[in-house]
C-alpha cells in the first residue's frame, strides 16, 4: 500500500514535470494573436517572437492602426514573464505572463493608459525585419543643400551622406525653419538612381534622383509632398 502511494507520487511528479517547459525549451517563440480590451473598443494584436543567436527578436502587427511588422524593442523573456516595447509615435509596452493553458495574458500600455490583453499562440514566428541602409554612390557622398516652402514659410534643408562600409550609408538630415531640427534617420537607400532618406518617427522623408549634378525630388511631411532640389554645398 505504501509502495503504491510512493509510486503514484512518482507518477504525478513525472507527469507534472513533463507538462512544464524544460529549461531552455522555447515555448515563447511563435506567432501570438489576441486582443487588448480598451474602453469601448477591442484592439487586435499579432506578435511574432523568435530567438536568433541566443537573442530575442520580434515584430508586431496592430491592424487598423497602421502598425505592420514594426520591430519590438527591449524584449525581456524570463519565463513565464515576457515584456517588450514598440518604439515610435504609438509607444506601446506589453507585459505578459505565460499561463498553464498556453496563453499569454497581461497588460497593453500606451500613453499611460493600461488595458488587459490576452494572446494565444497560433503558429511559428513570422518576424519581420526592418529594411537596412544601403551604400550610396560615391558622387552622392558629402553635403547637399536646398530650400522649400511649406505652411507659408521657407525651410532650409541639409542632407549629408557618409558611406559606412557594410552598414551602408548614414545621413545627417537637418531642416531649419523657425528652429533647427536634426531629424533622426531610420533608413537610407539607393535603388538605381533613386535615393530615399526616411525619418519615419517624425514623418519626414526625402526622395530624389541625381541629375546633372543636382539631387532633384520631393520632401514629404506626413502626407504633404512638395518639390525639393538639392545642390552640393559649397
Amino acid at each position, binding site marked *: 500500500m505504501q509502495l503504491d502511494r510512493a509510486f503514484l507520487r512518482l507518477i504525478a511528479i513525472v507527469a507534472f514535470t513533463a507538462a512544464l517547459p524544460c529549461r531552455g525549451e522555447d515555448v515563447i517563440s511563435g506567432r501570438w494573436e489576441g486582443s487588448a480590451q480598451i*474602453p469601448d473598443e477591442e484592439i487586435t494584436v499579432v506578435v511574432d517572437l523568435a530567438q536568433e543567436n541566443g537573442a530575442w527578436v520580434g515584430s508586431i502587427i496592430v491592424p487598423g492602426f497602421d502598425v505592420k511588422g514594426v520591430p519590438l524593442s527591449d524584449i525581456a523573456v524570463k519565463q513565464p514573464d515576457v515584456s517588450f516595447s514598440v518604439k*515610435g509615435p*504609438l509607444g506601446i509596452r506589453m507585459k505578459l505572463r505565460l499561463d498553464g493553458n498556453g496563453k499569454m495574458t497581461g497588460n497593453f500600455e500606451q*500613453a*499611460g*493608459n493600461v488595458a488587459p490583453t490576452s494572446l494565444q499562440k497560433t503558429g511559428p514566428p513570422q518576424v519581420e525585419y526592418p529594411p537596412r541602409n544601403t551604400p550610396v554612390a560615391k558622387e552622392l557622398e558629402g553635403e547637399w543643400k536646398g530650400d522649400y516652402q511649406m505652411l*507659408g514659410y521657407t525651410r532650409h534643408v541639409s542632407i549629408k551622406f557618409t558611406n559606412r562600409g557594410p552598414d551602408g550609408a548614414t545621413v545627417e538630415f537637418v531642416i531649419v525653419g523657425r528652429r533647427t531640427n536634426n531629424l533622426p534617420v531610420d533608413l537610407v537607400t539607393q535603388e538605381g538612381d533613386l535615393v530615399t532618406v526616411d525619418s519615419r518617427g517624425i514623418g519626414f522623408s526625402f526622395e530624389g534622383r541625381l541629375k546633372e549634378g543636382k539631387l532633384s525630388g520631393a520632401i514629404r511631411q506626413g502626407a*504633404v509632398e512638395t518639390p525639393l532640389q538639392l545642390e552640393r554645398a559649397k
Partner: protein
Amino acid sequence: MNGLPIGVLLAIFFATTAISAQSMFRGDAMHSGQYGGPAPRQFHRVKWKFPTGDRVISSPVFKDNVIYFGGDDGNVYAVDAASGRQIWKRTTNGPVPATPAIANGTVYVGSYDGKFYALDAKTGALKWKFATEGERRFEAKGIHGWQPKDQTIADPFDIFLSSPVVANGAVYFGSGDGNLYALDSTTGDLRWKFKTGDVVHASPALANDILFFGGWDSYFYAVDATTGKEKWRFHAGEDPLIHNQVGFQSSPVVANGVVYTGCRDSNLYALDAATGKEKWKFFNDLSWVITSPAVAEGKVFFATSDSSLYHVVDANSGKSVVRQQAKAYMFSSPAIVGDVVFIGVLNGTLEARDTKSGELLWDFQVDASKRNNGWVLTAERKFNDPFLYYSSWREAPIVANDKQIRIGGIFSSPLVVNGVVYFGSADGFLYALE
C-alpha cells in the same frame, strides 16, 4: 422735471446693460467676452445637467431666467436657468452649432439646414425664417495633408455656425454661402447681403455702425451696417499647399478703436478699426487661433489649438503678459468674470483660471472624458494623437476627429450668470456648475 434722479436712471441703465450683455454670443455686440456678477473661484457642485440628442457646440445665452442654446440634434432649446428643466424646444432640419441672440422677445439663430430662424422666446413658435443660399463647411483639396490630396474634403474642424448680432432693427450673421446677411429683425426681410470669397462662420462684431468679421477666404472685412458697403478689408495668410494655415474662424472683439481677431494662419491680429491697418500680430507657431479673444483691463485673452496655450497679451503692444500650458486644444472662447476667466478645453474639461496669473483655480471634467472611450486621451488628459490620427487616408482622419469630439470636447464658450457657469459639451449635455 419730475423724473427719476440721475443715479437711479444710471442704475437702471447699467442693470439693463448687464442683462442684455448675456443675451448674445460673447455677451454683447462688440463681443467683449466679459460678464457681470460674482466670479466663482471655487467649484462646489454640478447644479444640473441637461441632456440633448447630440453634441452641444453652441454657447448658451441668458434672458429673463431662461438659458437658450442650439443642439447638433437640430433643436433650439429654452431651459429654466434655475432648475435645468426644458421650457420648449424647436426643431430645425439641421444641426445648430450657432449661438442664439435674444432681443425683443425673439430668439435668432441659424441652422445647418440653410435657414435662419426667428422664434418666440417664450414659446419657441416660429415668427419667421429666411432661406440663405445654402449652408456648407469650408472645404479644400487635400486639406491638412489628408489624402487623396487632389480630392476636395470638407474640414471637420469648421465646427461652428455664425452667431447673429442684433442691433438697429436688424439681425446680422454670416453663412456658408459666403454672404454676410442683414435682415429686418421684425419681418426677416433682406436689407442687404455682402458677398465674400468663401464660407463665413465667424460671428460679426458691431461697433459704431460698422460690422467686423473674417471669412474662410482669409480676408477680414469692415462693412457699413446700414448700407452693407465695404469700408476696408485686410488680407491674412494663405496656405495653397494644404489649406491648413488659412481663414478666419475666430470671431472678433472690438475695444477702444481696435479690432482683435484670431486666425487659422496662427496669428492673433490687432487691426485699426477705422482703417484696417495692422497694429500688431502675435504669432503662435503654426497653431490656430480659433477662440474669439476677450478684452479686459487693457489685455487680450485668447488660447490656441495645437500648442494648447492660454495667452494674455497687452492690448496696445501685443507683448505677452501671461502664458500657461493647457492639456488640449482650445476652440472655446474665454469668458471673463471679475478676476476669473473660464474656458472650455477639447479634452472635455472646463477650466477656471486667475485673470492676473493665468493659474488654474479649478477644473471640471465631464463624464465622457473620464470614460476615455477608445483611448482618445492619454493618462494625462492630452490628446492621444498617434492613436487617433494614425492614417491620413480615406475617412480615417474624419473618424478620428469625430472620436476626439465625442470625448465631450467643450467648444461652447462659457456663460456666467449669478455665479453659475453654463456651457455645452460635445457629450450632448448642457452643464450648470456652481
